[in-house]
């Protein structure tokens, strides 16, 4: 749960300005969807939030403090691909965050600590619908399951901010709808502020509390290099969506999801997400 503030952030690669004048405030526990045409710098913005890239000008503040200049455990991430480790089984992938936190020297837990971590990981796996898959390698999982695993792995470490880079872009529509339900539930049940890059508008409006569109204001060929994209639309979803106040995950019985109790009528995303079915 963290507030994020962009203070007049610019990103330039040499002479090429990618992003300019990004100023916005993200309230704690918001679910932000970043949309925009390809090449408009959505992913660059996300990578700056991640700490993988630094703003050329301006500042990004998390809870009032400047962002650390490298990725850390406060910010979890799920990419479209390569998010999980192919050499670890499903269970080992989820346990990894805990092992890295508690075993600084070896990066591995043994004995009781390991069993405790494995128990927690198994609970989380059941929560994301991967019960029974724990001993498989990720390559044996379908794309949707791999992304569920990636979500579980990220959440296990307890990040404050979850960054999603087109996480569901490569999935079939049916599978995508299922994982949207899960994503919503995870957002409700954990203390996350979520920033998701997507090019799927229905996904953006269906999941987010706020949709932010990045766009180039000037697009003539001779201007393209010198003017970057900036926030062109900042839409709060109406009626207002807020996360439930919860601090820990507790496994919900199969088939019952918290999001299904939500206020539905008139919600833009209701057309896309059929959580009731």
């Amino acid at each position, binding site marked *: 749960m963290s507030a994020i503030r962009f203070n007049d952030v610019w990103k330039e690669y040499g002479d090429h300005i990618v992003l300019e004048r990004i100023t916005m405030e993200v309230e704690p526990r918001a679910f932000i969807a970043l949309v925009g045409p390809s090449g408009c710098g959505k992913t660059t913005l996300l990578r700056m939030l991640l700490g993988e890239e630094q703003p050329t000008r301006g500042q990004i503040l998390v809870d009032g403090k400047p962002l650390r200049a*490298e990725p850390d*455990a406060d910010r*979890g991430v799920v990419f479209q691909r390569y998010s*999980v480790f*192919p050499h670890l089984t499903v269970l080992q992938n989820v346990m*990894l965050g805990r092992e890295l*936190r508690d075993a600084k020297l*070896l*990066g591995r837990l043994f004995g009781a600590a390991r069993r405790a971590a494995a128990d927690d990981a198994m609970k989380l796996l059941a929560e994301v619908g991967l019960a029974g898959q724990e001993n498989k390698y990720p*390559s044996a999982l379908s794309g949707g399951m791999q992304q569920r695993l990636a979500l579980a792995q990220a959440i296990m470490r307890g990040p404050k901010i979850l960054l999603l880079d087109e996480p569901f872009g490569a999935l079939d529509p049916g599978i995508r709808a299922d994982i949207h339900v899960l994503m919503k539930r995870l957002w409700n049940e954990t203390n996350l502020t979520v920033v998701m890059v997507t090019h799927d508008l229905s996904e953006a409006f269906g999941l987010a509390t706020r949709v932010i569109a990045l766009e180039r204001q000037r697009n003539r060929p001779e201007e393209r290099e010198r003017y970057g994209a900036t926030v062109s639309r900042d839409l709060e979803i109406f009626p207002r969506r807020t996360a439930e106040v919860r601090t820990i995950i507790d496994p919900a019985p199969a088939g019952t999801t918290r999001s299904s109790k939500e206020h539905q009528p008139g919600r833009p995303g209701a057309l896309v997400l059929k959580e009731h079915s």
Partner: protein
Amino acid sequence: MRLVNIRPGRQMRFYLLALPFLLVAIAYFTGSSARLAENPNDKLLPALPSMVQAVKQMAFVVDPRSGNYLMLTDTVASLGRLGSALAISTVAALILGIVIGLLPGANALLGPFVSVTSMVPPLALLPILFIVMGLGENSKIALIVIGTLPCMIRDLAMKVQELPREQIVKAQTLGASTWQIALRVAVPQTLPRLIDVLRLQLGPAWLFLIAAEAIASDSGLGYRIFLVRRYLAMDVIIPYVAWITLLAFLIDIGLRVLQRKLFPWFASVRAE
């Protein structure tokens, strides 16, 4: 049907793989019998029985002068050198490859140096090794290490750099330190690739081994071949060459099996 679409079946595949071997054997024995028919004392292309006889003599009869089975002592000596050299190379390549591949600073420091040293022809260094380290085992092992290590480091560093950037970032978001990234992400994923790199360096390793043994040694497969060359003893040389080939082939298969057994996840990663 186009040739690109014709796939041999299981049985056909077996016949096809046997064919070149068979052709070489036929060519050899036809030539051999033709030459022997003309001159029974011909030494260049010995017949099968005389090679069998020579192998019996080398492998199963105690050498009266040294009291050893020569082929066994030769094999043990050669494999000992090859094994210790490759062990050194493999461990050093793993450590340096990971460091160079993972740390941009180490890459800037050592990358160009390793590239340059991998261009030094190792055999040209052999005299230096003999001068500095003497004619014993050390100089032979050093030659194999020098001959294989730079290429192994370079290949392995490249494999580490080929790991998806996303994985390194992901590990950091799970709180991993540089050391933990190396230990839990880079090393485990590099080990199966290390086996690939090692397999590729087996050829050069044998080359440097035989070369070093040929020049200064008192045992070893290379030593024996170059020793009996003085007597035109093709009936010993040919079986020895076949034996060396078989050993190299078995080591290669062994490494492949090891890779499959130890890293069951690797096949699907490589297929991507």
